[in-house]
């Protein structure tokens, strides 16, 4: 493989023009789509736009595309980057010139993505992130894979490289985990289908709103009604039709979940390097990201009864200041228990895993009951308007829900504090375990309401750079001693949080 020299300002691959062009076209269309639609509609009705014949429209569109293309070329020409001993430099901008300098030591993660177009023309994009901002600092749209891999490797070799005369040895890589099709299928089936269902419903409603006029014009609703013919059907037919609808909704939601899981996690593999972990996944959007354990702020492990029966665990890796959209990429699904334990051990060495867990005070149950009851009472209002006189019947269901909710949520709530780690478990249906390293904690707060003070109960809110965990409702004495202990742990050791 030819060595690339990154020490001189270089442009990305010329194919980048295509990527920038496609990206800008997509942005343009997405932004003005509604406008186009409105224009199209008024055109079909209004005669005053008659000068807009087909040729003119095509010419206009052509003009717009040429402008976008020209801009893409200029953008490509003005995009230069190079790497010196310990900094990455990037110059961008057509009219407003921007120069970004990024110290290698501050890089939080580097990842390589490949979307559909990039797969066709065989280039990848490389993103470099620091903790400074919640949007990606640097994105290089088009590099060929070999160059990108080398750049990535050079970004991660620190300044120590200069005095090491060791020939670039092949770093030992072991593919530690590969999700099989079967496991992904199971993962898809055990997803939260309610969420999928809501996504589909909102999508359909959105479409319906857009095209309500057409639906009315063509009287689709009437036709549908006449084919199903509900009015003349017997009670049994109505029941059957409803059952059919429910079955259809469940099936579609399930299919949607499975497809979603497959697209996002196709070919998921976790590669173990000497001190980093690499995640590769994706079908249309191929993604490869590298994680360094010291940058990881905390881990969240999710499973539920069904998933743990299949041996499926999801590990989310949280870092400082990553935006929500990126965050979902840092997720490894369909891990079985030994693999999970191994991965945690790799990221957080000497994590005990087992040991004594403490429960929140029984006061927590009371708070949960109160919370659930408020929602339950509020649900009666819409029920009254929908069902009518027999609305109070839903309270039987609500009561059952409250009992289950309080029981399961309280059972799943626990916490453990060891020498190095704080673990908090929670969840209602999902079993969520959050693991934090004590020396990465940013601040601690003790909260106590007026009523809790009477009963000597308090909660602790513990913040890391990635999110805040809560130890709910423990006795005030315990809370204070944990508070003191955590502060002692943070302050007595001179360890960096990243």
């Amino acid at each position, binding site marked *: 493989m030819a060595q690339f020299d990154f020490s001189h300002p270089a442009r990305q691959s010329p194919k980048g023009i295509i990527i920038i062009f496609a990206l800008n076209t997509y942005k343009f269309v997405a932004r003005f789509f509604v406008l186009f639609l409105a224009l199209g509609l008024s055109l079909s009705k209004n005669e005053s736009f008659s000068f807009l014949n087909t040729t003119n429209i095509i010419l206009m569109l052509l003009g717009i595309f040429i402008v976008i293309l020209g801009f893409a070329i200029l953008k490509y020409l003005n995009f230069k980057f190079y790497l010196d001993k310990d900094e990455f430099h990037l110059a961008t901008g057509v009219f407003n010139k921007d120069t970004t300098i990024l110290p290698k030591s501050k890089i939080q993660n580097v990842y390589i993505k490949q979307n559909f177009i990039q797969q066709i023309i065989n280039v990848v994009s490389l993103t470099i992130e620091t903790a400074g901002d919640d949007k990606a600092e640097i994105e290089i749209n088009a590099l060929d894979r070999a160059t990108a891999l080398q750049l990535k490797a050079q970004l991660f070799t620190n300044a120590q490289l200069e005095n090491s005369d060791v020939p670039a040895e092949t770093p030992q890589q072991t593919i530690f985990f590969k999700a099989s099709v079967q496991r992904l299928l199971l993962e898809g089936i055990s997803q939260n289908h309610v969420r999928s269902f809501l996504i589909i419903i909102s999508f359909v409603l959105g479409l319906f709103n857009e095209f309500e006029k057409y639906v009315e014009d063509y009287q689709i609703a009437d036709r549908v009604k006449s084919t199903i013919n509900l009015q003349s059907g017997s009670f049994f037919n109505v029941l059957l039709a409803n059952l059919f609808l429910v079955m259809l909704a469940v099936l579609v939601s399930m299919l949607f979940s499975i497809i979603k899981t497959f697209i996002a996690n196709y070919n998921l593999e976790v590669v173990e390097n000497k001190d980093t972990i690499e995640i590769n996944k994706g079908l249309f959007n191929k993604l490869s990201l590298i994680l360094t354990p010291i940058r990881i702020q905390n881990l969240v492990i999710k499973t539920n009864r069904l998933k743990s029966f299949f041996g499926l665990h999801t590990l989310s890796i949280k870092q400082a200041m990553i935006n929500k959209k990126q965050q979902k990429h840092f997720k490894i699904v369909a891990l079985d228990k030994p693999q999970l334990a191994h991965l945690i051990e790799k990221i957080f060495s000497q994590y005990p895993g087992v040991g004594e867990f403490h429960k929140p005070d029984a006061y927590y149950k009371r708070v949960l009951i109160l919370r659930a009851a408020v929602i339950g009472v509020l649900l009666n209002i819409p029920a009254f308007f929908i069902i009518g006189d027999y609305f109070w019947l839903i309270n039987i269901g609500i009561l059952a829900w409250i009992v289950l909710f309080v029981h399961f949520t309280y059972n799943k709530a626990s916490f453990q504090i060891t020498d190095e780690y704080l673990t908090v478990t929670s969840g209602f249906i999902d079993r969520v375990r959050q693991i934090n390293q004590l020396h990465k904690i940013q601040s601690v*707060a003790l909260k106590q309401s007026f009523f809790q003070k009477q009963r000597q109960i308090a909660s602790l809110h513990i*913040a890391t750079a990635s999110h805040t965990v809560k130890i709910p409702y423990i006795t005030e004495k315990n809370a204070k001693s944990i508070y003191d202990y955590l502060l002692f742990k943070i302050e007595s050791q001179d360890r960096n949080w990243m």
Partner: protein
Amino acid sequence: MFTNQQINLDALPTIDDLNYKPVSKQYLKIIIINRSAIYLIIMAALWIAKLKVMDHTFQNLFWYIFAVVIFIAIVNLMFCIMAFKTRKYAIREQDVIYTKGLLVNSIAAVPISRIQHLEISRTWLARKLNLATLNIFTAGESGIDLSIEGLDHSEAKKINDYLSERVNGTI
């Protein structure tokens, strides 16, 4: 030399025996002025509505609504005054602690080694009363940053200088 002695948990410094320092009494004025301004605006809006809206039910209910607003305003102000005494702070060798709240009391601590940067902000009213707010920023979510409101300006500057020096590692 590496040592790893067991820690006696009871001997750790505890937040129970801290001497908190209250914020400036002047700050109560700002709280009262701010709150009163909000309620006065609401009342003024109601009064204008009374003059403009000719709806019968509204005219009938007007005095009830007005009374409710006044009642809420008085209760809210009373709570503010009572809760004012709970606004206290303490600076230890290794951390800054700020406590406030009567209905929901919180004691928040930020270790000095985790401070990212500091900021003193002063509103127009605070400048008139020679007060300042000290904002202490840590990494991560914005919700966990500490801001100590209603310090004397000189006091805020003193704390700010001390903490900055500590953060920059000169002490």
